[in-house]
Protein backbone atom coordinates (compact mmCIF):
# COMPACT_ATOMS: atom_id res chain seq x y z
CA UNK A 1 0.00 0.00 0.00
CA UNK A 2 1.18 3.52 -0.80
CA UNK A 3 2.65 5.37 2.21
CA UNK A 4 0.59 8.50 1.48
CA UNK A 5 -2.59 6.46 1.86
CA UNK A 6 -1.32 5.22 5.20
CA UNK A 7 -0.51 8.74 6.38
CA UNK A 8 -4.03 9.82 5.54
CA UNK A 9 -5.50 7.02 7.64
CA UNK A 10 -3.30 7.26 10.70
CA UNK A 11 -5.57 9.63 12.59
CA UNK A 12 -8.58 7.39 11.93
CA UNK A 13 -6.52 4.39 13.00
CA UNK A 14 -5.52 6.09 16.22
CA UNK A 15 -9.13 6.89 17.10
CA UNK A 16 -10.22 3.38 16.08
CA UNK A 17 -12.71 4.44 13.45
CA UNK A 18 -11.26 2.44 10.56
CA UNK A 19 -13.15 -0.55 9.19
CA UNK A 20 -11.60 -3.89 10.13
CA UNK A 21 -10.28 -4.55 6.63
CA UNK A 22 -8.57 -1.14 6.41
CA UNK A 23 -7.18 -1.53 9.90
CA UNK A 24 -5.61 -4.90 9.12
CA UNK A 25 -4.10 -3.55 5.92
CA UNK A 26 -2.68 -0.59 7.77
CA UNK A 27 -1.24 -2.71 10.56
CA UNK A 28 0.41 -5.02 8.04
CA UNK A 29 2.00 -1.97 6.42
CA UNK A 30 3.20 -0.51 9.74
CA UNK A 31 4.99 -3.73 10.54
CA UNK A 32 6.96 -3.53 7.31
CA UNK A 33 7.50 0.23 6.93
CA UNK A 34 9.60 1.92 9.60
CA UNK A 35 8.93 5.40 8.17
CA UNK A 36 5.17 5.05 8.57
CA UNK A 37 5.57 3.40 11.95
CA UNK A 38 7.71 6.31 13.18
CA UNK A 39 5.14 8.73 11.87
CA UNK A 40 2.33 6.90 13.64
CA UNK A 41 4.21 6.77 16.94
CA UNK A 42 4.92 10.49 16.72
CA UNK A 43 1.25 11.18 16.02
CA UNK A 44 0.13 8.97 18.88
CA UNK A 45 2.51 10.62 21.36
CA UNK A 46 1.39 14.03 20.16
CA UNK A 47 -2.33 13.28 20.53
CA UNK A 48 -1.94 11.54 23.88
CA UNK A 49 0.05 14.38 25.42
CA UNK A 50 -1.81 17.26 23.87
CA UNK A 51 1.12 18.29 21.75
CA UNK A 52 3.53 18.74 24.63
CA UNK A 53 5.67 16.62 26.87
CA UNK A 54 4.03 15.07 29.91
CA UNK A 55 2.63 18.10 31.68
CA UNK A 56 1.34 18.42 35.23
CA UNK A 57 0.27 21.38 37.38
CA UNK A 58 3.14 23.26 39.03
CA UNK A 59 4.34 22.25 42.48
CA UNK A 60 2.79 25.42 43.93
CA UNK A 61 -0.58 24.48 42.42
CA UNK A 62 -0.28 20.98 43.83
CA UNK A 63 0.47 22.25 47.32
CA UNK A 64 -2.37 24.77 47.13
CA UNK A 65 -4.83 22.03 46.19
CA UNK A 66 -3.45 19.70 48.86
CA UNK A 67 -3.86 22.36 51.53
CA UNK A 68 -7.43 23.06 50.39
CA UNK A 69 -8.33 19.38 50.52
CA UNK A 70 -6.70 18.98 53.92
CA UNK A 71 -8.60 21.97 55.31
CA UNK A 72 -11.88 20.71 53.87
CA UNK A 73 -11.58 17.12 55.09
CA UNK A 74 -9.45 17.54 58.22
CA UNK A 75 -10.28 14.73 60.64
CA UNK A 76 -12.35 15.98 63.61
CA UNK A 77 -13.07 13.76 66.67
CA UNK A 78 -16.51 12.98 65.24
CA UNK A 79 -15.01 12.04 61.87
CA UNK A 80 -12.38 9.89 63.59
CA UNK A 81 -15.06 8.02 65.55
CA UNK A 82 -17.13 7.48 62.42
CA UNK A 83 -14.07 6.25 60.59
CA UNK A 84 -13.26 3.79 63.37
CA UNK A 85 -16.81 2.48 63.44
CA UNK A 86 -17.02 2.07 59.70
CA UNK A 87 -13.53 0.67 59.21
CA UNK A 88 -13.37 -2.48 57.10
CA UNK A 89 -12.92 -5.66 59.14
CA UNK A 90 -11.21 -8.58 57.36
CA UNK A 91 -13.20 -11.79 57.00
CA UNK A 92 -10.82 -13.89 59.07
CA UNK A 93 -11.29 -11.54 62.01
CA UNK A 94 -15.05 -11.90 61.74
CA UNK A 95 -14.77 -15.70 61.60
CA UNK A 96 -12.46 -15.73 64.64
CA UNK A 97 -14.85 -13.52 66.59
CA UNK A 98 -17.82 -15.74 65.70
CA UNK A 99 -15.92 -18.88 66.76
CA UNK A 100 -15.01 -17.24 70.04
CA UNK A 101 -18.64 -16.29 70.75
CA UNK A 102 -19.89 -19.80 69.97
CA UNK A 103 -17.24 -21.37 72.21
CA UNK A 104 -18.09 -18.95 74.98
CA UNK A 105 -21.80 -19.77 74.72
CA UNK A 106 -21.11 -23.52 74.85
CA UNK A 107 -18.63 -23.41 77.73
CA UNK A 108 -20.33 -20.75 79.84
CA UNK A 109 -22.66 -23.10 81.84
CA UNK A 110 -19.91 -25.54 82.82
CA UNK A 111 -17.57 -22.72 83.74
CA UNK A 112 -20.30 -21.15 85.83
CA UNK A 113 -20.95 -24.50 87.61
CA UNK A 114 -17.24 -24.91 88.29
CA UNK A 115 -17.00 -21.46 89.78
CA UNK A 116 -20.21 -21.62 91.84
CA UNK A 117 -20.86 -25.28 92.89
CA UNK A 118 -24.30 -26.07 94.45
CA UNK A 119 -24.25 -26.99 98.18
CA UNK A 120 -24.45 -30.80 98.72
CA UNK A 121 -27.78 -32.08 100.16
CA UNK A 122 -27.63 -35.13 102.44
CA UNK A 123 -30.06 -37.96 101.69
CA UNK A 124 -31.45 -38.16 105.17
CA UNK A 125 -32.55 -34.60 105.17
CA UNK A 126 -34.68 -35.03 102.10
CA UNK A 127 -38.39 -34.85 102.69
CA UNK A 128 -40.68 -36.77 100.37
CA UNK A 129 -43.80 -34.75 100.84
CA UNK A 130 -45.74 -36.52 98.08
CA UNK A 131 -45.32 -39.98 99.65
CA UNK A 132 -46.33 -38.87 103.12
CA UNK A 133 -49.47 -37.40 101.74
CA UNK A 134 -50.38 -40.65 99.96
CA UNK A 135 -49.80 -42.80 103.06
CA UNK A 136 -51.95 -40.57 105.17
CA UNK A 137 -55.02 -41.42 103.17
CA UNK A 138 -57.27 -43.95 104.84
CA UNK A 139 -59.45 -46.15 102.70
CA UNK A 140 -62.55 -47.50 104.30
Amino acid at each position, binding site marked *: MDCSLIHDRLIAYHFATLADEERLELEAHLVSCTGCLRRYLALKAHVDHGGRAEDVPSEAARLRLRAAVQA*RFRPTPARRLRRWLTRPVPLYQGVALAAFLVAAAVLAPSVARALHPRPAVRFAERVDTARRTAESLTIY
Partner: protein
Amino acid sequence: MDSDEALYSRVKQGDMRAFDELYARYASRLFGFLRPQVASRADAEDLFHEAILATLESDEVTFDRGSFRTWLYRIARNLLLNRVRSRYRGEAALLKVGASGEDDPPPPVDERVAMGQMLRALDGAVGRLPETLSDVYHLRSSGLSYEEMASVLGIPLGTLKSRMNQMVNVLREEMKPWTAR
Protein backbone atom coordinates in the same frame (compact mmCIF):
# COMPACT_ATOMS: atom_id res chain seq x y z
CA MET B 1 -4.06 -1.31 44.18
CA ASP B 2 -7.00 0.65 45.54
CA SER B 3 -9.69 1.77 43.11
CA ASP B 4 -10.29 5.47 42.49
CA GLU B 5 -13.55 5.17 44.37
CA ALA B 6 -11.85 3.67 47.45
CA LEU B 7 -9.29 6.46 47.42
CA TYR B 8 -12.09 9.01 47.06
CA SER B 9 -13.77 7.64 50.20
CA ARG B 10 -10.52 7.77 52.13
CA VAL B 11 -9.79 11.34 51.07
CA LYS B 12 -13.20 12.36 52.35
CA GLN B 13 -12.21 10.92 55.71
CA GLY B 14 -9.11 13.09 55.76
CA ASP B 15 -6.58 10.56 54.52
CA MET B 16 -4.03 12.70 52.70
CA ARG B 17 -2.00 9.73 51.50
CA ALA B 18 -5.06 8.67 49.53
CA PHE B 19 -5.24 12.18 48.10
CA ASP B 20 -1.59 12.01 47.01
CA GLU B 21 -2.25 8.75 45.23
CA LEU B 22 -5.37 10.04 43.52
CA TYR B 23 -3.52 13.19 42.52
CA ALA B 24 -0.67 11.17 41.04
CA ARG B 25 -3.16 9.23 38.94
CA TYR B 26 -4.90 12.26 37.50
CA ALA B 27 -2.40 15.12 37.57
CA SER B 28 -1.12 14.45 34.09
CA ARG B 29 -4.29 13.12 32.48
CA LEU B 30 -6.73 15.73 33.69
CA PHE B 31 -4.27 18.56 33.26
CA GLY B 32 -3.51 17.26 29.77
CA PHE B 33 -7.23 17.41 29.05
CA LEU B 34 -7.63 20.98 30.32
CA ARG B 35 -4.39 22.62 29.24
CA PRO B 36 -4.87 22.57 25.46
CA GLN B 37 -8.35 24.03 25.79
CA VAL B 38 -7.53 27.22 27.68
CA ALA B 39 -5.24 30.08 26.82
CA SER B 40 -2.88 30.00 29.78
CA ARG B 41 -1.29 27.50 32.10
CA ALA B 42 -2.58 29.42 35.12
CA ASP B 43 -6.15 29.03 33.86
CA ALA B 44 -5.62 25.30 33.42
CA GLU B 45 -4.25 25.04 36.96
CA ASP B 46 -7.24 26.93 38.37
CA LEU B 47 -9.65 24.67 36.54
CA PHE B 48 -7.76 21.60 37.67
CA HIS B 49 -7.95 22.80 41.28
CA GLU B 50 -11.68 23.55 41.06
CA ALA B 51 -12.49 20.27 39.32
CA ILE B 52 -10.70 18.08 41.86
CA LEU B 53 -12.13 19.97 44.83
CA ALA B 54 -15.66 20.02 43.42
CA THR B 55 -15.54 16.29 42.72
CA LEU B 56 -14.31 15.51 46.22
CA GLU B 57 -16.96 17.75 47.77
CA SER B 58 -19.85 16.28 45.79
CA ASP B 59 -21.60 14.61 48.72
CA GLU B 60 -24.67 13.69 46.72
CA VAL B 61 -22.67 11.49 44.39
CA THR B 62 -22.26 7.86 45.28
CA PHE B 63 -19.64 6.33 43.08
CA ASP B 64 -19.92 2.90 41.59
CA ARG B 65 -16.73 1.23 40.51
CA GLY B 66 -15.24 3.11 37.59
CA SER B 67 -17.48 6.12 37.87
CA PHE B 68 -15.13 8.48 39.71
CA ARG B 69 -13.26 9.24 36.53
CA THR B 70 -16.49 9.92 34.65
CA TRP B 71 -17.62 12.39 37.30
CA LEU B 72 -14.25 14.06 37.46
CA TYR B 73 -14.19 14.70 33.72
CA ARG B 74 -17.84 15.72 33.65
CA ILE B 75 -17.25 18.32 36.34
CA ALA B 76 -14.00 19.47 34.72
CA ARG B 77 -15.71 19.86 31.38
CA ASN B 78 -18.59 21.86 32.85
CA LEU B 79 -16.17 24.17 34.64
CA LEU B 80 -14.22 24.55 31.43
CA LEU B 81 -17.30 25.42 29.41
CA ASN B 82 -18.46 27.92 32.02
CA ARG B 83 -15.12 29.63 32.07
CA VAL B 84 -14.68 29.68 28.32
CA ARG B 85 -18.16 31.04 27.73
CA SER B 86 -18.20 33.65 30.43
CA ARG B 87 -14.66 34.93 30.38
CA TYR B 88 -13.51 34.62 26.84
CA ARG B 89 -16.71 34.64 24.86
CA GLY B 90 -16.25 31.45 22.97
CA GLU B 91 -13.66 30.92 20.35
CA ALA B 92 -11.22 33.58 21.53
CA ALA B 93 -10.30 31.40 24.49
CA LEU B 94 -9.76 28.26 22.52
CA LEU B 95 -6.42 27.04 21.37
CA LYS B 96 -3.90 29.53 20.27
CA VAL B 97 -2.25 26.84 18.24
CA GLY B 98 -2.55 26.53 14.54
CA ALA B 99 -1.51 30.07 13.75
CA SER B 100 1.82 29.04 12.36
CA GLY B 101 1.24 28.88 8.64
CA GLU B 102 -0.98 25.85 8.27
CA ASP B 103 -2.54 27.46 5.21
CA ASP B 104 0.76 27.46 3.36
CA PRO B 105 1.47 24.49 1.13
CA PRO B 106 3.94 22.09 2.75
CA PRO B 107 7.43 22.38 1.30
CA PRO B 108 9.24 19.23 0.15
CA VAL B 109 11.45 18.46 3.13
CA ASP B 110 12.79 15.42 4.87
CA GLU B 111 10.70 13.04 6.96
CA ARG B 112 11.38 14.63 10.31
CA VAL B 113 10.38 18.08 9.20
CA ALA B 114 7.34 16.67 7.42
CA MET B 115 6.31 14.97 10.62
CA GLY B 116 6.65 18.21 12.55
CA GLN B 117 4.49 19.98 10.00
CA MET B 118 1.90 17.26 10.13
CA LEU B 119 1.67 17.57 13.91
CA ARG B 120 1.38 21.36 13.75
CA ALA B 121 -1.32 20.92 11.14
CA LEU B 122 -3.08 18.54 13.49
CA ASP B 123 -2.96 21.11 16.31
CA GLY B 124 -4.40 23.71 13.99
CA ALA B 125 -7.16 21.38 12.83
CA VAL B 126 -8.02 20.44 16.42
CA GLY B 127 -8.15 24.12 17.35
CA ARG B 128 -10.72 24.73 14.63
CA LEU B 129 -12.97 21.83 15.58
CA PRO B 130 -16.46 22.82 16.72
CA GLU B 131 -17.09 22.40 20.44
CA THR B 132 -18.99 19.12 20.14
CA LEU B 133 -16.17 17.47 18.20
CA SER B 134 -13.41 19.11 20.20
CA ASP B 135 -14.85 17.56 23.37
CA VAL B 136 -14.70 14.14 21.80
CA TYR B 137 -11.10 14.65 20.69
CA HIS B 138 -9.83 15.80 24.09
CA LEU B 139 -11.73 13.25 26.14
CA ARG B 140 -10.53 10.41 23.96
CA SER B 141 -6.97 11.75 24.10
CA SER B 142 -7.23 11.65 27.89
CA GLY B 143 -7.80 7.93 27.71
CA LEU B 144 -11.53 7.71 28.38
CA SER B 145 -13.47 4.80 26.90
CA TYR B 146 -16.45 5.35 24.59
CA GLU B 147 -18.83 4.53 27.46
CA GLU B 148 -17.12 6.98 29.81
CA MET B 149 -17.11 9.71 27.18
CA ALA B 150 -20.81 9.21 26.49
CA SER B 151 -21.48 9.47 30.20
CA VAL B 152 -19.37 12.61 30.61
CA LEU B 153 -21.07 14.29 27.66
CA GLY B 154 -24.53 12.99 28.59
CA ILE B 155 -25.22 11.57 25.13
CA PRO B 156 -26.11 8.09 23.86
CA LEU B 157 -23.29 5.80 22.78
CA GLY B 158 -24.51 5.84 19.18
CA THR B 159 -24.33 9.63 19.05
CA LEU B 160 -20.85 9.54 20.49
CA LYS B 161 -19.66 7.08 17.84
CA SER B 162 -21.15 9.27 15.17
CA ARG B 163 -19.35 12.33 16.55
CA MET B 164 -16.13 10.38 16.73
CA ASN B 165 -16.40 9.50 13.04
CA GLN B 166 -17.29 13.09 12.22
CA MET B 167 -14.31 14.38 14.18
CA VAL B 168 -11.90 12.01 12.48
CA ASN B 169 -13.27 12.88 9.04
CA VAL B 170 -12.86 16.61 9.70
CA LEU B 171 -9.27 16.11 10.88
CA ARG B 172 -8.44 13.87 7.91
CA GLU B 173 -9.83 16.43 5.52
CA GLU B 174 -7.95 19.32 7.14
CA MET B 175 -4.70 17.39 7.21
CA LYS B 176 -4.85 16.15 3.63
CA PRO B 177 -2.22 18.59 2.30
CA TRP B 178 0.27 17.24 4.86
CA THR B 179 -0.61 13.58 4.80
CA ALA B 180 -0.92 12.99 1.04
CA ARG B 181 2.87 12.98 0.65
